[in-house]
């Protein structure tokens, strides 16, 4: 019970601060926590990256294997994205089948990668209808201090843009070659705290929030995915303003994924 009371006091405090455009960690409403991207973190993977957004940590690993294309897309490779919220990352995660929250992170990240046509699936086809590459994007959350979606996708695209197709190892070509990445989607997540909409929420801010909105944009100026989550509401005008902000942050984060210092 005492934990519930502390949480209640903390949430009220977060909302009071937000009303003045302030946040617990001193950031402004439109400011991300420090972000670092560490590519090649896992050498056994065909591509990998470790991303930190404040104390939220995501590691993405790419694995490519030869498989069969889906019957309805015989000329394309297969891409699957999965995000695991493993118990070590937060006292609130428990072992067992994935909870709806974990499924949501996984699907929202997958949606952005898919809709942006991040990977050229046609290039992953080896023999139409028979043999194609299956590209697995697995993201493990190692630390959870809020905003899992942005960290997970940033790790995924950072890993994808440096991944290698292990063609030599699987005996379908003379040499391995880089995976072709067409578009780089970036997701930016916002939460409503009273009438203030802040970017990159922490764990505590997510719990105090009255609605969460994620917007995925790509470098071609397209919105490719959105997801509203948590209890709460946004007006169409809120959404439009948030999309604008997502484009601005998206460009900077895309630079970080590509290895430019922010």
């Amino acid at each position, binding site marked *: 019970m005492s934990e519930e009371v502390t949480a209640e006091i903390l949430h009220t405090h977060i909302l009071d601060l937000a009303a003045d455009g302030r946040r617990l960690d001193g950031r402004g409403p439109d400011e991300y926590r420090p972000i670092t991207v560490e590519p090649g973190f896992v050498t056994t993977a065909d591509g990998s990256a470790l991303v930190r957004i404040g104390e939220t940590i995501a590691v993405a690993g790419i694995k490519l294997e030869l498989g069969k294309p889906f019957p309805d897309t015989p000329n*394309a490779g297969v891409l699957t994205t999965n995000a695991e919220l493993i118990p070590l990352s937060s006292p609130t995660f428990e072992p067992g089948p994935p909870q709806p929250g974990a499924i949501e992170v996984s699907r929202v990240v997958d949606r952005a990668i898919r809709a942006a046509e991040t990977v050229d699936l046609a290039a992953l086809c080896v023999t139409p209808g028979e043999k194609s590459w299956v590209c697995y994007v697995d993201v493990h959350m190692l630390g959870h201090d809020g905003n899992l979606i942005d960290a997970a996708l940033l790790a995924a695209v950072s890993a994808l843009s440096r991944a290698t197709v292990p063609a030599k190892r699987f005996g379908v070509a003379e040499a391995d070659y880089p995976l072709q990445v067409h578009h780089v989607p970036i997701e930016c997540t916002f939460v409503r705290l009273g009438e203030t909409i802040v970017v990159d929420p922490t764990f505590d801010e997510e719990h105090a929030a009255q609605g969460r909105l994620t917007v995925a944009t790509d470098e071609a100026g397209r919105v490719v995915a959105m997801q509203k989550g948590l209890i709460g509401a*946004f007006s169409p005008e809120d959404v439009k303003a948030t999309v*604008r902000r997502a484009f601005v942050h998206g460009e900077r984060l895309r630079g970080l994924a590509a290895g430019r210092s922010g």
Partner: protein
Amino acid sequence: MGSVGAKEVPVLLDAEGRRIDGRKLDELRPIQIRAGPLPQADGSAFVEWGANKVMAAVYGPREVHPRHLQQSTKAVIQCKYNMAAFSVDERKRPGLDRRSQEISKVIGEAFESVVFAEEFPRTSIDVYIEVLQANAGTRCAGLVAASVALADAGIPMADLLPAVAVGKIGGQIALDLKKEEDNFGEADLPMALVPQSGRLVLLQMEGHMTEPELAQALDLGVVGCRAIYEKMKEALRERYSVAPIAPIAPEAA
């Protein structure tokens, strides 16, 4: 969603800007809502929307199962969206898949945004959505059905929740996509509106839209939701209206 290697892409918009079923870009499919078809449930509704058939039932407020989900300050809303195995062309494997779980979560959160849950602490309001026949837009049809079912169950809430999906076909923003338009269109954006506040409590999007297109889609969706809202109110009025009372004969002077 412009899938790679798809056989043939049908023409979604003809020269006159008509859609494959003859609709205009801002036209909804025919929608019929019936409140209270299931006498066993505390509240229920059946929605036929284009070729979608969706049933929703509400039970509660009642005891929470499993018990540990119980909250001391408010009711929990447990929403289960499910597609019948026979609801789609290729049989869907029954049971919980990740898509259904995500949809259940976002619909549940939408209702938690409007239901006065704090009036029923330590209880559960269970919302079941069963898609019997699917033709794109089932989460919106399910949300509309569930919202009418919640009202039918007498659950107090800020407002009904009309919902609709807006999409992009042949480069144009279009209201309420049907299956072919959803499969071969360029974007899909389902939303649910709280009509009285003008705010959105469900919003998802997949595909490609520019910033101005997205703004246009949001505005078109709001108009669509308001039209659905009228249908929802009509269904509830029909269920709960009584025959007008015959005027009392004037007393003989």
